[in-house]
């Protein structure tokens, strides 16, 4: 890696200034494949790795997943008709690679994948925190958000069944529409919507439990919930 945190590739020079933003530029469409790929790889590396970490929950597995994703993307780059769509294209490759790997390991009883196993019902962190007696103390739900650490959020995400985690990652991390997520996963839009709703609900419940343990929120034993 280069000292500046990049991949260590030589910067494109022959083709002038190179726009790396998601909006792209004219030369984004026409520059040589290798230059295009290098710039995009560097731009998206941390996001893809962060996403892979949340999906696999293991650093080594996440690294393998991203490396395999880039290998497939590089091999298939010629098939990408619109370079503007590179971001979602490579993310789809990552998701499909992850799902394929999970299917291969399905015999391994690593995690319960069935969404039916998730408890029904909605849970709202806002409603839990926005209790009348807690409002004497100011704005408890906002204070909660201020106090939650990144690792609290990561832990809450990691507790989700894979099917829910996947749709949350697609919609919240990568801005997929429900239709795009459904298309990528081969599911009806209604199923994506349902998984998203239940996943968010479970995640907020996990965050609330963590907040109770940390003393940020008052748990049921103190009469704040239920």
């Amino acid at each position: 890696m280069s000292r500046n945190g990049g991949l260590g590739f030589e910067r494109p020079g022959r083709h002038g200034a190179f726009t790396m933003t998601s909006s792209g530029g004219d030369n984004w469409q026409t520059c040589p494949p290798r230059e295009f790929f290098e710039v995009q790889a560097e731009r998206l590396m941390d996001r893809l790795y962060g996403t892979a970490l949340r999906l696999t929950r293991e650093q080594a597995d996440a690294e393998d997943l991203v490396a395999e994703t880039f290998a497939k993307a590089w091999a298939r780059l010629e098939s990408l008709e619109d370079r503007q769509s590179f971001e979602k294209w490579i993310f789809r490759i990552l998701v499909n690679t992850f799902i394929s790997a999970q299917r291969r390991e399905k015999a391994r009883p690593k995690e319960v994948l069935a969404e039916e196993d998730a408890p029904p019902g909605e849970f709202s962190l806002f409603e839990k925190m926005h209790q009348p007696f807690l409002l004497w103390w100011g704005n408890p739900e906002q204070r909660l958000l201020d106090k939650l650490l990144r690792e609290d959020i990561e832990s809450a995400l990691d507790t989700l069944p894979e099917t829910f985690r996947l749709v949350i990652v697609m919609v919240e991390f990568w801005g997929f529409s429900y239709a795009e997520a459904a298309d990528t996963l081969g599911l009806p839009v209604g199923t994506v919507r349902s998984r998203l709703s239940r996943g968010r609900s479970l995640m907020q419940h996990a965050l609330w439990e963590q907040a109770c343990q940390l003393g940020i929120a008052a748990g049921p034993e103190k009469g704040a919930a239920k």
Partner: protein
Amino acid sequence: MSARYRCGTGERGGQMINDLRCEEVIEKLLDYLDRELDSETEQALANHMETCRACYSRAEFERRLRARINEAGRAAAPDSLRHRVRALVERY
């Protein structure tokens, strides 16, 4: 939406603002934040939240929570991974 959530007048579903009850707004809030509503419904929710503090607070909370969740989707890739990707591109 949970039956516990009430805003506005205390009447079931909260107060009616801009042709929408708070209950309807909360039911559609996640779709609204995901930009999944048609433009007319989206505008109706936006109008409601301009004048309903309770629904606005709820929406702001969800927005801020999403921003925090989004932070978890990015992590510094290790050097070893960058080396692997660089080697891949250089090899082919």
